[in-house]
């Protein structure tokens, strides 16, 4: 093999780099699913939990456009229950804490939705801000 002394160290470095995530995480605590605090008194969200977990972001986007741009102020869910469309008035009525609910997953998976740049989180009110 030509250039053996360059190719073999090169391959070793390449292999070292490509397996970096594997051995870097060795010995560290395994990934744990976040556990957002669920409401105590209410058992059902507006749609079922699994669906909400997967689709809440699209639903919230749709809610936003419907209520701001099309004057559709209420959402009738698949079971026929009527809800007022409002993040602050409807969602956060049951999910009483942004820190204990929203942030739990969002921080873990490093997403930062801009909802709370403007919308008032329940904490801000209880803290007297």
């Amino acid at each position, binding site marked *: 093999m030509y250039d053996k002394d360059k190719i073999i160290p090169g391959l070793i470095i390449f292999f070292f780099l490509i397996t970096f995530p594997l051995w870097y995480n060795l010995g560290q605590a395994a990934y744990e699913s976040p556990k957002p605090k669920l409401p105590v008194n209410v058992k059902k969200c507006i749609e079922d939990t699994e669906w909400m977990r997967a689709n809440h972001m699209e639903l919230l986007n749709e809610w936003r456009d419907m209520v701001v741009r*099309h004057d559709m102020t209420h959402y009738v869910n698949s079971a026929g229950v009527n809800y007022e469309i409002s993040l602050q008035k409807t969602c956060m009525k049951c999910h009483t804490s942004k820190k204990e609910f929203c942030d739990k997953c969002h921080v873990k998976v490093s997403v930062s939705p801009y909802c709370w740049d403007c919308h008032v989180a329940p904490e801000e009110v209880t803290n007297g801000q």
Partner: protein
Amino acid sequence: MDNKRRKILKIAAATAAVSFTGLPIETFASYLPKIGKYVRSDKEKKAKQWGMVIDTRKFKTKEDFERVIKACHSIHNVPEDIPNKKQEIKWIWEEEFSHAFPDQENPFLAERYEHKDVIVLCNHCQHPPCVRVCPTKATFKREDGIVMMDFHRCIGCRYCMAACPYGSRSFNFRDPAPFVKHKNPKFPTRMRGVVEKCLFCYERLEEGKLPACVEASNGAIIFGDIFDPNSEISKVLRENYTIVRKPELGTGPCVFYII
């Protein structure tokens, strides 16, 4: 060759058949999470064009102005006491008569008008220039005539502020949150870099209530559908001589003043 043409025609026919079924596009767009339905509020107040008559004769003391302004600003989380006056945010405020109505000024104006203050706010124009210039459709005219703001969409270009001849729009040069002392948990705040203004209390109309300033004015502000001949506001407009701000610009303001 023949085969190919037949295939294309078949696809075209199938596409046409689908588009003529009259089903809404959502039926085919499976990526949309449509499992519920959207409906309007049953308490909602409806109109063709909301309008307002402000009886300036009934605004006598400083307190009359402050009560109305406070009623609006406190429920809409409007920041107060921003140190730099050029950066202040106003939804409804008092303006000197000659500033509000520059076309009504004359050197021999009756004394009681010369330094009179009038209450001013967004005119919710019939032909709003701000809506024409908005590049993102963040501001638009609703079916009921309200010139609405979609704060989510505003990119802060401030074209609307340049277009509005009434100075009804304010820009958030800084994060307004620290200047909102008591946040109303039922209404959002705004962020740095968006424009805001009076929205004719669309959120209260949806609940079947009158705008906050109207409620706080003790009858000095009349609110209603100016296109409905049987509404109270139409009656007031018929019976009183009213003026609007800068009518020569053709914006069709919907806030009228009894002087």
